[in-house]
């Protein structure tokens, strides 16, 4: 299997604050990989380093190309879709305009893309003209996911999809992500507080602590690990 994304000794900082101290990880093509860890461990920063929304150093190779200094718009054009924490839905725009933005980097009609995406989010089709801000929190999270998927990404970066949502909606979101992964071969790097859900969906996981990788392994290995059970799974 081919490696789609590889981070090698990546560091990132916000002004004087060092958020990542040399993180190395890999995402294989067609895999779902979870990043776990306590608050402030650098999970979100890891995703930001990949999409170029934070200053970083070290080596990031995506799809055979070094990302170098590519910013977020450049990363999007290469096929990385980042759904940030807090959704990043344009609440003032309509649902349709939000989806349209997903295809911003492409020319031509997006009808077929949107139709395909709507098979995963059927309820969105009656709401095309609705202002996105009038959707519920869970619906906005799904819209953000739908928009990211219209981008036709090779890699989806998903940050805390469960944040502030009812458990039934969280389960629905993870179900859709798994379906996209199985049917469309979408690779996913997901940051998630809810380790149960994350390890259920993912094949592989990393545990970040204080800006460094503390542990890594297959989901089964991580589930069996005692320290993981104590800290994240609540046994």
């Amino acid at each position, binding site marked *: 299997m081919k490696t789609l994304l590889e981070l090698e000794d990546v560091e990132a900082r916000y002004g004087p604050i060092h958020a990542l101290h040399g993180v190395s990880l890999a995402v294989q093509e067609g895999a779902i990989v979870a990043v776990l860890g306590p608050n402030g461990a650098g999970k979100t920063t890891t995703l930001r380093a990949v999409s170029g929304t934070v200053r970083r150093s070290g080596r990031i190779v995506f799809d055979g190309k070094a990302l170098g200094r590519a*910013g977020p718009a450049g990363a999007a054009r290469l096929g990385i879709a980042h759904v940030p924490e807090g959704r990043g839905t344009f609440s003032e725009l309509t649902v349709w305009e939000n989806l349209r933005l997903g295809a911003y*980097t492409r020319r031509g009609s997006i009808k077929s893309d949107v139709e395909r995406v709507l098979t995963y989010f059927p309820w969105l089709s009656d709401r095309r003209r609705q202002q996105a801000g009038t*959707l519920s929190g869970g619906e906005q999270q799904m819209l953000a996911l739908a928009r990211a998927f219209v*981008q036709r990404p090779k890699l989806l970066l998903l940050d805390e999809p469960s944040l502030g949502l009812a458990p039934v909606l969280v389960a629905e979101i993870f179900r859709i992500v798994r379906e996209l992964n199985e049917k469309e071969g979408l690779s996913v790097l997901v940051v998630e507080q809810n380790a149960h859900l994350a390890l259920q969906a993912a094949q592989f996981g990393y545990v970040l602590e204080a800006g460094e990788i503390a542990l890594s392994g297959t989901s089964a290995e991580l589930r069996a690990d005692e320290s993981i059970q104590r800290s994240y799974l609540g046994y």
Partner: protein
Amino acid sequence: MPRFLSPLANVQPTVYLVVAGAVFLLVGSLDSARFASLTVGGVGVGAAYGSLALALVLIYRATHVINFAQGELAMLTTYIAYQLVQWGLSYWEAFFATLAIAFVLGTAIQVTIIRPVQHRSVIGTVIVTVGLFILIDGIASWRWGGIAYAQLPSPFGFGAWEVGGVPIQHLYAGMFGIVLASVLLVWALFRFTKIGLGMRAAALRPAAASLAGVRVDAMLALGWGFAAVLGAVAALMYEPSQFSGLTPTLMQTALVYAFAAAVLGGLESPAGALVGGLAIGVFLNMLAGYAPQVVSLEVPFAFAALLATLLIKPSGLFGQSQVQRV
């Protein structure tokens, strides 16, 4: 009162206010020819204020910066049009060439002067626009200030139609028409094109827009370009209505009125800027017509309108509270 008890609860009070204002002007105009002709003049000049106010709103929405140089930039483009006419172009050739030059100029200023400072602080950027005001004023005075009496020909002439005994000057009708057409074009561009969607997204949420692949910096530069075009339309239309002719101070009071118009309409609202401009234009023209003894107080009256708006409804007539769920 619960919403379902009042079928009109969804209609904003602002709509009533605007309709009431329009009815007032209409009834007044039917009653008095003098009132009507003052309304016509006010609407013509007010359209120019509205266009300049819209230019301010475009930049404010995207970056929360008030561009103090907007009026001077508009004045500069008017001199460029003047120069082109001097060189032998017809009025309309010069008009469209000037709009193209204004677009390039606005974009270039954003890229070279504003972009390096915009990420530091809003107030720093505002101060840079004040510096830009002085710079452009200096350039225009140095290059064209010595001309004793410069004037751009009026493209509409100085004739008038008679409608029920009320003269409707071609000048004012033309101003209103051209401004309305350019505003509608800019609105359609923002509303219906992909680049317009990119500009709106970049203005609303720069970080999320860039994650979708929108090049936010390029969108801000284009925004300055379109604002400069609207300013140029305002100044080109405004200049023939002024007895002073073309001077480097042409747009300075107009900028004050445009500020008042933009604040009155709500700084975030393009429609508000236009309505605000028309309201200020008509109000000041009435003031000049019915109370000529206080005509030198026009600027203070505009400030009073600005202050009253900020005190009574700081979000302006068209300012909306965003619907957002978290």
